[in-house]
């Protein structure tokens, strides 16, 4: 993990002194992290039920309003507990 992470961090610096990155490749690389996250969460939520969907919506709302990851975690967890209890 450390090695491949460092390779990506140093890779751009090394590469750009040698080649020009085309625009489409740049765009493709830029969406990768988001696409991976969606691919993790999508099937997980599809397997889950209404309590998780509701809690997911709460976490989304909190993350969007506060931009705070820890706060989104806490409210998502509180919401899932609440909805599972109902």
């Amino acid at each position, binding site marked *: 993990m450390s090695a491949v992470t460092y390779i990506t961090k140093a890779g751009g610096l090394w590469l750009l002194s040698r080649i020009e990155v085309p625009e489409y490749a740049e765009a493709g690389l830029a969406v990768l992290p988001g696409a991976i*996250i969606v691919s993790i969460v999508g099937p997980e939520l599809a397997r889950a039920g209404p309590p998780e969907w509701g*809690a997911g919506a709460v976490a989304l709302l909190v993350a969007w309003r506060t931009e*705070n*990851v820890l706060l989104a975690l806490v409210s998502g967890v509180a919401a899932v507990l609440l909805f599972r209890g109902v």
Partner: protein
Amino acid sequence: MSTETSDSPTESERADRTMHFSMTGVREGFIECIPIALSVAGYGIAFGVLAAQAGVTVAEAAFMSATVLAGAAQLIAIELWAHPIPVGTIVATTFIVNLRYVLMGAALQPWFSRLSPLQSYGSVFFTADENWALTMGEFRSGSRRGAFLLGSGLAIWIFWISATVVGAVSGAAIGDPARYGLDFALTAVFIAIAVELWDGRSRLLPWVAAFGVAIGAASVLPGRWYILLGGLAGCFAEVVRVAA
């Protein structure tokens, strides 16, 4: 977490000037990054708690934070964590999710080419999304403090490791995760990261592609390969969208 890499003529002009690399630059970068590092610490606590819940020891979690220093990749590794550890899946997914750093490093190149290899390649280890953005802002406004990425990265690194330890210690103290709804914590964190990565409506097409392929692949393939496939589908969709 933006990965904007536009080049303007003024940037190359600025890059022609000499860059300074000094302890003062490190210190200034460190101090200016502290408010951001504090928010990173919140994220680090979340990572520590989740790592402990997944059965990672405090020492292992701290070691991972110290040597990897990439939040999303570390959380994904925790998501994939199992016994025996699926090394191939974790390393491949880490690489793919971190490919954005290639762009971020490339964006630093006009300024870092003025530094020595040790200075520049040493500094990039400390690249995180947050201090990269701060450093780019600094360089674009004409600053010549070449050690800024290192200084700001050190602030993030220290807060990240400390927060991981705090989170992992408290996470280990909590018992059954499902009882407290903690089985949902990682999903909540990923949703929050997705919100951060949402860059406007242009993200819709690649994300829908990723979602569809991931759901489809999850139902037919064993293991967690659907994550990589979904990610690559999103990337491919975006390449097609831009090239079209």
